[in-house]
């Protein structure tokens, strides 16, 4: 789960990191009021789950409150990479001397949190890593010890010569690790980390992604979820315990297991169709989940045919069959449904489906081909 800059900054502040103040505005008037309170130059920053906000014109410097209002008017409602800006962060402008990069993320290969720091701040770190890897210092943290003082110092020392800046940055790196672990993050980034002419080190931008598997034990982080940019169908799916991603095609897919669900989408494409969604109904075979899945798929107006592909290992095929019959009984589904069920209790399942008048297929290719044909308007 991605969180906004202002939310990440709140988590950073709670860990003791030096972050300039800032407040959220949802209207130009609010932005004006906040800017007036701070006095002087402020920055108005779009809050969307996307990089490249500056390039898109979503980050603007304002000399006074009136200009802040003007910028907020332009930025609120702006579209950045398909996301509508609904909030701006208003924060006092800092006197920037240097810009650096400090980030920590879970490295799949090292199987642990890994820091990356670079004196090349304010730019895309992936670009720096690809073009000039010597400008980056990396450190993998042993999860059993956490980051040790000399390790934080070693990273900070790569960024600055001045002992005071190194000391402040070492401390901040340790605090960033704490914020990362205590929020259950998979990524936390300060870009840029600035130094001021007064010799202070501050985090003026913040980015964080949270591991979805951590949210059950971190209600305070879960509360930061912004559903405004998510389709209603995805919100509903999450509530029903389904894994769903909306796509743009017209073949609705309902599959058990993530790998098979992806392979089914790919096969729809192979046969000339376009999948309308990724949907994994999961391992347990609760008929209610099937009902919820059908509700979600049919709420997508683009869908012209619905395809079930169930390989029953743990999932019992008869439960899925019952769910399909039950759901279509009270949902009034007018779209054609084609079903492939195989595995545990498949005979029982096929009997249930036959009685309800649904055609069932034994092979994945046959059912996908049929679904694509139906979505294209064939009989």
């Amino acid at each position, binding site marked *: 789960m991605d969180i906004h800059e202002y939310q990440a900054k709140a988590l950073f502040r709670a860990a003791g990191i030096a972050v300039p103040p800032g407040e959220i505005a949802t209207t130009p008037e609010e932005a004006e009021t906040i800017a007036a309170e701070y006095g002087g130059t402020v920055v108005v920053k779009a809050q969307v789950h996307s990089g490249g906000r500056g390039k898109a014109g979503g980050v603007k410097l304002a000399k006074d409150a009136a200009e802040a209002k003007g910028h907020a008017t332009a930025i609120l409602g702006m579209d950045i990479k398909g996301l509508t800006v609904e909030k701006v962060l208003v924060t006092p402008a800092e006197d920037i001397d240097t810009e650096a990069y400090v980030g920590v993320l879970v490295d799949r290969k090292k*199987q642990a949190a890994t820091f990356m720091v670079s004196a090349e701040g304010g730019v895309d770190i992936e670009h720096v890593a690809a073009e000039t890897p010597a400008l980056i210092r990396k450190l993998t943290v042993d999860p059993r010890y956490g980051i040790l003082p000399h390790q934080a110092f070693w990273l900070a020392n790569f960024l600055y010569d001045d002992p005071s800046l190194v000391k402040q940055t070492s401390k901040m790196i340790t605090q960033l690790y704490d914020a990362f672990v205590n929020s259950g993050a998979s990524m936390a980034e300060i870009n840029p980390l600035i130094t001021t002419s007064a010799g202070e080190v501050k985090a003026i931008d913040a980015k964080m992604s949270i*591991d979805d598997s951590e949210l059950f034990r971190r209600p305070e982080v879960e509360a930061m979820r912004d559903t405004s940019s998510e389709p209603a169908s995805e919100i509903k799916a999450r509530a029903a315990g389904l894994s769903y991603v909306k796509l743009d095609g017209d073949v609705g897919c309902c599959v058990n297991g993530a790998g098979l669900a*992806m392979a089914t989408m790919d096969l729809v494409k192979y046969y000339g169709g376009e999948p309308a969604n990724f949907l994994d109904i999961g391992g347990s075979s609760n008929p209610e989940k099937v009902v919820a899945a059908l509700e979600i798929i049919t709420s997508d107006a683009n869908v012209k045919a619905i395809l079930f592909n169930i390989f029953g290992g743990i999932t019992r095929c008869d439960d899925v069959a019952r769910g399909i019959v039950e759901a279509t009984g009270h949902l009034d589904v007018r779209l054609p449904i084609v079903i492939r069920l195989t595995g545990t209790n498949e005979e029982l399942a096929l009997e249930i489906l036959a009685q309800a008048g649904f055609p069932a297929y034994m092979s994945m290719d046959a059912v996908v081909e049929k679904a694509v044909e139906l979505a294209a308007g064939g009989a």
Partner: protein
Amino acid sequence: MSIFIDNDTKLVVQGITGRDGSFHTLQMMEYGTKIVAGVTPGKGGQTFAGPDGETVPIFNAMDEAVTQTGANTSVIYVPPAFAAGAILEAADSGVALVVVITEGVPVLDMARAHAFARDKGVRVLGPNCPGMISPGQSKVGILPSHIVSEGPIGLVSRSGTLTYEAVFQLTSVGLGQTTCVGIGGDPLIGTNFIDCLEAFEADSETTGVVMLGEIGGTDEQEAAAYVSANMCKPVVGFIAGQTAPPGRRMGHAGAIISGSAGTAEEKMKAFEENGIAVAKRPADLAGLIQDALN
């Protein structure tokens, strides 16, 4: 022969009294897996009733279970909040292999658990995996046993049900398997493609390998390089997620395309460049491995 599990596997089930744990313990026993113990804290001294009237002793802790029964492998069905703790306990108990079925274990918990298990020299499979099966010998996990058959093919996959689909295809053309391994869909997994490929290459009965990958990470690319550098046996593959949009998690926590990395396209290219024939759809896998064997 087979890899990782066989007739000598003596299994302890962590979470044997839970809903999933008890269901799959019965399934594994029916298949013939030697289950010697169960562990559920607070239920030590009770017994678990098997399908044919046999009983399995339940212990409060792994250490007791292993000492008293000589178990050498454990399988974990406990909820996500307790899964990492169960791995640490298993790794400390003397078993050589820990299979983690649980889905949704926090990644930072797994970072600690993997580091601990590595130091102890204990192999972890998973988490978020279907386990594995060596047909005719032993099944550890949740794979449906009716689709497998004994034979010469090794299968390794990041997915659950896609594995079943591929095994089903192999079995239906008469190609049985030495071992089918689901390595799991999480970002941090204990046993990766290369570990399995190395074991299959060393296994005298395996003649060819089917490798099923998916979007996210670079494990498939590294596995492909390993195949061309270290393997004599033919390997064929499939990658799921060709139609997946970037930046979205496709069910599996590890199945996400970040930036330009982890796409199906680059993985398929890596396969082809390293002599691994790529199936366009799961139904082509059986034909490809047959061709490769001939």
